């Protein structure tokens, strides 16, 4: 799904976020307005420059007069919205979401290449997740080391699909996809072939850089070394979408 092109003549709406009166373009989403105004909204699947996926649900916000929580990344602002971004209820929900991510796969941070540079790990700390209250699923997942430069470890994957989107929307290779349902979901390369045998992969490494965890890493990096650089993304995305 490509990013919707911004309209040249859009109206400006006014809304209230956490007690602050703000104005925004009608075609903006809540998370965009929050980021512009330094209102922190946690997110894992959202990444500026990629299309909106709305999978991780960490960016949930409360809208006055609505019982249902809204994902800030996939909700456009409207006139007069009254939004709360950090209520106790939201904190509780976010905590649970992070715990479920940890319970689903086997995140052993102490032996993870991304230890110390991982968005999920930081999210856990920020949300006050000091333990996981549900039992661990303890399912076994494979590792794909067939690519000469990169490695995929499904144990660390949170199915944010950033890799899928960056490869499709920015690199244009569409090597990545998602297979299966529910907790059996898995990211795959080509038709679920080993990554190293992929005909479409250009080895550009964009997927590795945008992956928030240690699921995609460079071969040969040791624990704590895998620092990711995502600065390229908004620049490339702007160039792509302005064409």
């Amino acid at each position, binding site marked *: 799904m490509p990013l919707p092109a911004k309209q040249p003549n859009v109206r400006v709406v006014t809304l209230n976020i956490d007690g602050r009166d703000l104005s925004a373009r009608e075609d903006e989403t809540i998370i965009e307005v929050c980021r512009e105004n330094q209102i922190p909204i946690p997110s894992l699947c959202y990444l500026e420059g990629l299309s909106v996926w709305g999978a991780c649900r960490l960016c949930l916000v409360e809208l006055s007069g609505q019982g249902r929580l809204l994902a800030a990344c996939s909700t456009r602002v409207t006139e007069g919205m009254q939004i709360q971004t950090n209520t106790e209820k939201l904190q509780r929900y976010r905590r649970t979401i992070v715990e479920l991510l940890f319970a689903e796969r086997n995140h*052993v941070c102490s032996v993870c290449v991304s230890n110390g540079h991982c968005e999920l790990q930081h999210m856990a700390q920020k949300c*006050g997740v*000091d*333990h996981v209250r549900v039992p661990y699923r303890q399912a*076994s997942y494979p590792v794909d080391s067939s690519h000469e430069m990169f490695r995929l470890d499904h144990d660390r994957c949170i199915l944010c699909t950033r890799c899928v989107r960056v490869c499709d929307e920015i690199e244009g290779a569409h090597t990545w996809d998602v297979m299966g349902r529910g907790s059996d979901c898995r990211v795959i390369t080509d038709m679920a072939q080993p990554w190293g045998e992929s005909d479409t992969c250009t080895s550009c490494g964009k997927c590795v850089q945008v992956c928030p965890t240690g699921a995609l890493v460079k071969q040969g990096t040791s624990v704590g070394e895998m620092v990711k650089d995502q600065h390229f993304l908004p620049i490339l995305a702007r160039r792509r979408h302005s064409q």
Partner: protein
Amino acid sequence: MSTPPKITVATTWLDGCSGCHMSFLDMDERLIELVQQVDIVYSPLVDTKTLPDHVDVGILEGSISSEDDLEKAHAFRKHCKILVSLGDCAVNGNVPAMRNHFKLADVVDRAYRDTVTFQPQTPTQGVPALLAVVKPIHGVVGVDVFVPGCPPSADAIWYVLSELIAGRIPEPSAVTRFGA
């Protein structure tokens, strides 16, 4: 000025590498300050052989991996007012729990037979039976304070103990995280 009464502390290691206890010792000269406020009544670091009936703070390192771990965790829960899960092994299973993806028999064979050249045999005496699934401490008993980290830093342990001594429940997320 009267000095406040000391709190009693018991510690032990279950299935871990004892690195968390080493990190405890890494408090260095602060240990001297600590002994003014804390009595270590039972621990691998002291000579007491039995866990007293009433302990203020119990600290467990390592995960629940064997019958022996299970017994110790239950004993600590029973006799300690506040139970602290110290380190990733205790909090989330960490490295010991990586064996959960294999059948226990395969794990034992790997350790005692496949990789041994002379007289491969599985020990049965003097070692506790392993459980099929490794669990974090709170998978078997209630835990009051979780201190993630592998190991949590000496500063983090110091913070947690200082808060407990002051009668407060610490919030370790401010000072440590998974894998720290």
